[in-house]
């Protein structure tokens, strides 16, 4: 995009782990910036970025216990916007993928684009990417639906149990205050289990997943029955994965219109590729 202002912003993601998941282009954006803002949850990752660019400043000081995240995100945006408007080439680095479950990254891009600045986002490795790798789940195998837990609970979503379900942030599910102060309560989790029980038997296996954030440890992969979920110890990074009930039936009306049959499809699916 052609910009008409001097300052610029690139938003990058640092991955879920400490520093090993930063892409080469991300590292180069950090090196080439006038100033770097980082909002990542570990000091070694921050130290790694500081080695790439000494003019690195944290945004995590804006987090305060009990402070609404809406305000925290606004404060982060203000800090980044001020630097861009001062004419600086700014790089903002967020944890994971900068566009996934990150509010201020989208907001600053939107505001600065409206004001005529050059802005862009580079993709990063998200928790979902780690989940796919750790659990060996291909989102394309059954299709996949992905929700934030509280939003799923509060809204009238339609869940398709034939698809793999990924439900994020189950630890604080039902906490409408945006402060996580109600996260210790289990009422929301019980309501979530109740909502899911409309689609699955109580003994349907579900997985509590936590991507490893440090190479010292392994990712958490705990399989339990749906009905047991309320008694499981959760953490702020717990994600619920619900395996599919299996593929749905064929849509014979559509197949007929295309002149093919279910058997034709099964035949092609059964052709094995040789392994060299």
């Amino acid at each position, binding site marked *: 995009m052609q910009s008409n202002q001097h300052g610029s912003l690139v938003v990058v993601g640092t991955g879920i782990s400490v520093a090993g998941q930063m892409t080469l282009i991300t590292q180069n954006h950090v090196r080439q910036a006038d100033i770097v803002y980082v909002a990542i949850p570990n000091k*070694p990752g921050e*130290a790694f970025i500081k080695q790439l660019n000494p003019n690195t400043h944290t945004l995590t000081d804006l987090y305060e216990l009990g402070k609404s995240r809406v305000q925290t995100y606004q404060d982060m945006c203000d800090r980044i916007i001020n630097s861009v408007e001062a004419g600086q080439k700014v790089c903002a680095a967020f944890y994971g993928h900068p566009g996934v479950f990150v509010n201020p990254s989208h907001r600053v891009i939107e505001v600065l684009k409206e004001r005529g600045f050059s802005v862009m986002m580079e993709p990063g490795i998200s928790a979902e990417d780690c989940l796919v790798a750790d659990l060996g789940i291909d989102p394309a195998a059954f299709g996949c639906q992905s929700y934030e837990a*509280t939003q799923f609970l509060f809204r009238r979503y339609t869940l398709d149990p034939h698809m793999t379900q990924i439900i994020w942030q189950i630890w604080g599910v039902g906490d409408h205050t945006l402060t996580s102060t109600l996260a210790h309560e289990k009422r929301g989790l019980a309501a979530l289990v109740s909502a899911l029980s409309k689609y699955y038997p109580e003994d349907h296996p579900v997985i509590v997943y936590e991507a490893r954030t440090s190479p010292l440890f392994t990712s958490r992969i705990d399989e339990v029955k749906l009905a047991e979920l309320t008694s499981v110890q959760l953490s*702020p990074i717990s994600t619920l994965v619900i395996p599919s009930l299996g593929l749905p039936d064929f849509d014979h009306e559509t197949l007929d219109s295309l002149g093919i049959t279910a058997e034709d499809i099964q035949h092609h699916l059964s052709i094995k590729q040789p392994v060299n």
Partner: protein
Amino acid sequence: MTDKLVDFVNALDQDPALQAQYKEDPRGTAESFGVSDEDLSLLFGGNTEALQQRLDMAGLSSIVWVQHAK
């Protein structure tokens, strides 16, 4: 002064060979890297509370990252 535990975590996060070595022999790998006896005891001693405190002090703990529901 650098924190050898932090250096070890950073190296481990970026080096597949070191990861393979750590998987095979966690304590020996950390020891060879130069992680202190005190930190080795915390990492492998089973006192999760003390380990958590150490990781917090080293900035290796996680912040809660959540996007609000709409």
